[in-house]
């Protein structure tokens, strides 16, 4: 660690200089050490979650609660491919904005003007990419060592020169014999490695891997299999069902330098849905707990070795992944916590010390409101209370629906208010579970068996909200209800503003202290991607991506009607706002 500490000191000094002069004309050298202090560098947005703390918070305050009402569109970029909308997070380095659009397109733009500096379009294996449900999603990039890194839906990781867009290396990382797993989530730079997880919770096949790839060469350093990788996991899948078990880690985790650990959320088990019902421990398609699906895993960053884990949904009967959302690193009262949302509408507050195995749960609380798949969660142990199983046959008014009480986008934590801001969604479904036949082991073929219809919660229409709460205790400070549940990520700033990209296209700024609406602008199409802030030539900008068309978004037409029934699913933009 000494080597890293030495570099860290130099990196902090470099950052301090850069902060003093605003943005420099010389390209900033981003490496693993730079990211250790990304939270102290508000001029840039260097990694998917903003920093390893995953706060999605910026110390910039030029735009603030007093003047945000004057915010205007500064420039707009329209990518040439945006099927299912733009779902990614832009990154900003030295006044240059980098972002991805559908089907593996990467753009580098002048952050002040939107002028295109370069564009890269991956040549994808379309048959493999289109063989999944997740095509052509791309949710972002990593930057470091002079490169931009992107995963692809056909299982590759590509490094591009960040100044020219030229390919530095292009490696096939995820080979699934005859199958169709790939990458849709953004990679994260850790030390001198790129860490990225595979998709495919609903696809038959071992092993839902998470990879660490050498940032300079593209060689795989290590691979952690989220299912079937160790005896504990295999023993939790009766009848060797791990071989068709799904898993994966399709969204972006984080790195905790204090313990040299990767924290990553894992995907659901296949099949969706198991017909076993109450007999799931011994019967059905995948008897047992199905480790490490729908879990949090903590890995040695250097080796990929499992240090600890916690299974948030033992034998997940509802498709409530742990892959969604962020790991917010928060210190309070001498304790270090990792706060992580589960799709089922539970916030897990973990002790950040992975020497506890399984992880020690310091608190767990429900964020969902109309749930009935469980009666609740034990705050002290994180164990589910009163499971509602879904055996073969019909079930009405199951809440939340397969889409969860929260989806894959992130919340935000503002250290000034001490509040975590997070979106929630409330609708249900009627489902008929059928016995699905397992595809061939390791095949990567779809493995699910159910038909469903999204429904409104009993007694009221589907709805959503942004909640501001103490992340550790869960105590709510304020909440704003939305007719159409927001699906995008949130951003909070030192200027006491929370930016909320709305489902109906309205982009809002709320007062971080009260939830009062301070400003809004109609971007003309729904949002379900990222939002960041950065500076270019000393001026603060806010960048948000637009576009509509994910599986979750597909529920909005049947639930709400217009504007969603006529909202295109092959459009989207990057919009950048600034004060006049």
């Amino acid at each position, binding site marked *: 660690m000494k080597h890293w500490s030495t570099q860290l000191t130099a990196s902090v000094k470099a950052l301090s200089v850069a902060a003093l002069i605003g943005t420099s004309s010389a390209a900033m050298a981003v490496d693993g050490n730079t990211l250790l202090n990304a939270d102290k560098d508000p001029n840039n947005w260097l990694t998917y979650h903003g920093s390893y703390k995953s706060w999605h918070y910026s110390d910039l305050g030029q735009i603030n609660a007093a003047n945000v009402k004057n915010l205007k569109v500064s420039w707009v970029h329209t990518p040439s491919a945006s*099927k*299912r909308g733009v779902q990614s997070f832009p990154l900003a380095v030295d006044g240059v904005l980098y972002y991805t659009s559908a089907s593996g397109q990467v753009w580098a733009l002048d952050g002040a003007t939107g002028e295109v500096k370069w564009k890269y379009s991956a040549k994808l294996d*379309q*048959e493999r990419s*289109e*063989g*999944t*449900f997740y*095509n*052509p999603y791309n949710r972002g990039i990593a930057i470091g060592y002079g490169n931009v890194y992107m995963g692809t839906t056909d299982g590759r990781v590509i490094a591009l020169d960040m100044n020219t867009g030229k390919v530095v290396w292009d490696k096939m990382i995820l080979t699934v014999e005859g199958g*169709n797993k790939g990458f849709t989530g953004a990679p994260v730079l850790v030390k001198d490695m790129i860490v990225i997880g595979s998709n495919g919770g*609903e696809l038959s096949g071992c092993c839902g891997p998470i990879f660490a790839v050498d940032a300079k060469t593209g060689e795989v350093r290590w691979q952690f299999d989220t299912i079937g990788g160790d005896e504990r996991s295999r023993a939790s899948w009766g009848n060797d069902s791990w071989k068709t078990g799904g898993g994966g880690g399709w969204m972006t985790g984080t790195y905790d330098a204090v313990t040299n650990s990767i924290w990553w959320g894992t995907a659901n088990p296949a099949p969706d849905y198991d017909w076993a019902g109450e007999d799931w421990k011994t019967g059905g398609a995948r008897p047992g707990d199905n480790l490490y699906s729908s879990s949090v895993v903590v890995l040695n960053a250097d080796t990929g070795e499992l240090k600890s884990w916690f299974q948030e949904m033992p034998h997940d009967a509802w498709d409530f992944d742990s892959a969604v959302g962020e790991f917010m690193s928060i210190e309070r009262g001498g304790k270090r916590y990792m706060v992580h949302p589960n799709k089922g509408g539970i916030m897990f507050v973990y002790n950040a010390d992975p020497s506890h195995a399984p992880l020690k749960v310091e608190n767990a609380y429900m964020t969902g409101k109309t749930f009935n798949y469980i009666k609740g969660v034990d705050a002290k142990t994180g164990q589910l209370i009163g499971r509602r199983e879904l055996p073969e*046959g*019909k079930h*009405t008014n199951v809440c939340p629906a397969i889409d969860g009480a929260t989806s894959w986008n992130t919340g935000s934590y503002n250290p000034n208010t001490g509040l975590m801001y997070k979106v929630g969604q409330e609708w249900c479904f*009627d489902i*008929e579970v*059928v*016995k*699905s*036949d397992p*595809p061939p082991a390791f095949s990567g*073929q*779809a493995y*699910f*068996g*159910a*038909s*469903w*219809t*999204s429904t409104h919660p009993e007694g009221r229409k589907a709805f959503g909200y942004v909640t501001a709460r103490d992340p550790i205790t869960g105590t709510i400070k304020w909440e704003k209800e939305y007719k159409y549940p927001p699906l995008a990520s949130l951003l909070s700033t030192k200027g006491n503003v929370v930016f909320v990209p709305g489902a109906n296209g309205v982009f809002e700024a709320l007062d971080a202290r009260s939830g009062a609406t301070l400003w809004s602008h109609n971007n003309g199409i729904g949002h379900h991607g990222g939002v960041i802030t950065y500076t270019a030539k000393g001026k603060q900008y806010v960048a948000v991506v637009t576009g509509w*068309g*994910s*599986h979750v*978004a*597909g*529920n909005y*037409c*049947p639930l709400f009607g217009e504007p969603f*029934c006529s909202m295109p699913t092959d459009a989207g933009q990057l919009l950048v706002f600034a004060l006049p």
Partner: protein
Amino acid sequence: MKVATMTMRGCLLMLASLTVGSAGGVHAADANNPASETAVPAEPAAAPEKPKIDIRKLFATNCSWCHQDYGMKAADGPKLAGTSLTEEQVIEQISRGKSPMPGFRKTLSKEQIEALAKYIKGLKDPAN
């Protein structure tokens, strides 16, 4: 909703009624209820020797991720009931896909794809 509130026993009856021979023996479901018990086998139960196709199971395990309520409701994918495509076009689209819909020609048999197309064309849109 009628389909959703039927009993488990009724559900099993429906599944049984929709289990059909694979050699073009699948039949269209009732106009407003794709799982209607009005459907009748196209061939005598003892006649076919090929494996039978349970059309609801086939739909649920391949199509329902995007097409809700056995094709009767729009969601991520369009409502299939009342599709303007011909049966041949439906077969083509299931086989080859149409981005972002995946193609199924490598994972489903010709008979299964034809059965799905016939089922989909038999769905009537209650709105029309």
